[in-house]
């Protein structure tokens, strides 16, 4: 989780990722951010987020995103 927050903060230093729960709905993360994020996560956790997981529910908060990563890690 710590590592994920670091990645996120590097992307958007001005956002508080601990509290914000509507990153997609409020258009804070755009498609460019998402792709960069996925590449970073791929590097950090060695997990590939497939395209069909790119839905608002998975990216709206750091928590949800972390949940996704854990789920994917588990499935492997």
């Amino acid at each position, binding site marked *: 989780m710590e590592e994920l927050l670091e990645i996120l903060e590097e992307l958007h230093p001005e956002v508080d990722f601990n509290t914000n729960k509507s990153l997609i709905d409020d258009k804070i993360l755009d*498609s460019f951010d998402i*792709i960069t994020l996925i*590449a970073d996560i*791929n*590097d950090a956790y060695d997990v*590939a987020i497939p*395209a*069909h997981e*790119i839905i608002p529910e998975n990216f709206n908060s750091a928590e949800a995103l972390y949940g996704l990563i854990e789920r994917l890690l588990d499935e492997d």
Partner: protein
Amino acid sequence: MLFTSYEFIFFLCLLIGLYYIIPKRFQWQLLLISSFVFYYFSGWSNLLYISVTIVSTYFVSIKLNGLTKKQKAYLKENRDLSREEKKVYKEKIKSKRWGWLLLCLIFNLGILAVIKYTNFALSNINSILTLFKMNEISYVNLLLPMGISFYTFQSMSYIIDVYREKYEPERNIGKMALFVSFFPQLIQGPISRFDDLSKTLYKEHSFNAKTFSFGFQRVLWGYFKKMVIADRIITAVLTITKNPDTYDGIYVFIGMLFYALQLYADFTGGIDITIGIAQMLGIEVKENFIRPYFSKSITEYWRRWHISMGTWFKDYVFYPLSVSKPMLNISRSSRARFGDKVGKRLPVYLSTLIVWFTTGIWHGSSWNFIVWGLLNGVIILISQEFDPLYARFHERFKVKGTFGFRLFQVIRTVLLLSSLRILDCYRDVGVSFRMFVSMFTKLDIGVLFNGSLLDLGLDVSDYIVLVIGVIILIGFSLLQRSGSVREKIANKRPVLRYSVYILLFFSILILGAYGIGFDSNQFIYNQF
């Protein structure tokens, strides 16, 4: 059958009448039959093409689902398998599923590609052959089935979603066929998603006066935009763009703005008709436009214009491409080579350009559209790069959010996207650029005032209608920002409310550019 033909109006009245008379459980079947009848009118061979897509997609969707079920059953039965063994089995099923999906995609997109791009490919080969003084290959005569780009994309989104297990496939082939062929959106979209459309498409609908009249009002509004505005101004657009030698300089600018108006009125009007008809039938089709000309940047514009196409490319091309293994590898190696800052962007930028290349070629099989698509991508990337610059600008000058600055942004965006569309209008890329340049080199403002505008095929009364039409369009959009306009009118006194609709009806009837004297022209988006 075009939306603006008498046959279509007749067909529609008949269908709607029947729809609410027959037992409700047959409603979706009636829609299916009507859709096929509608399609049949454009030629029976077209019926063949769409049937092939329906059957192949249906077959593969059931196959994919069967494999998933097989996997679940197998894993349930063999709980005691090791993690490794399970993984091997899963991989096996996965690759089988991938194989089926690929087959379906290649087959259906292949049909689209062959029909749509064979001659374009041949013309490119031929120009190379001529370069080497060799004989040219003769062109093939393939008729583009109506709406093939739309229904192919719609069925491909369906099969990919089934593959991704987003939802269960539809087991009734008739229902699945209706999803692919639903006639109001066959000609020019929107490209609906199964999980959206299926919510209301197969339901039993009893007549609801409010929904019905709202649907009807929307249809009227669509016809107004299309027949009174688009079909009127098209005369001037064609006069200008088909005679680039006569009409350059300021005419290009006029043509560009006229085309922006024509395309908007035609396309959004067509979609209004589509959504309105669906609504009259009790079916919800997702919005395809959200006041696109109020966008403050090209990126925003593409989120608000032809939305169903944009999200299609995002969900089925941009994301899968960007997160694919090769792309992630490129990302890793480029970061290693160029450093974090540049390296991170390279894959995203690459995907963006590929997506815009595909978007371009989807719009039409010519270099014009490819260049148009790529330029859109380039502009989006440039504005991405300029982001920090903008931030500094706004820090310095506190104009952000002021009305004046927003207006400037909106106008800038409309001008930008209109100049890109010059490529849409002229016969080749060379002429398009020549015309674009001539806007700046041959700027003869006098044309605006010396009556030359009356030589474009429109007379004074046409211009008056257009000016009033544009004012209504803008006023409508402004009103719409705070909620449904129909809802607002519905709250007014009956006399006022009905006067508005009767006026709308008669303005279409009288001012519509239809019948003898006006060329019947097809929806611009038909060919795509």
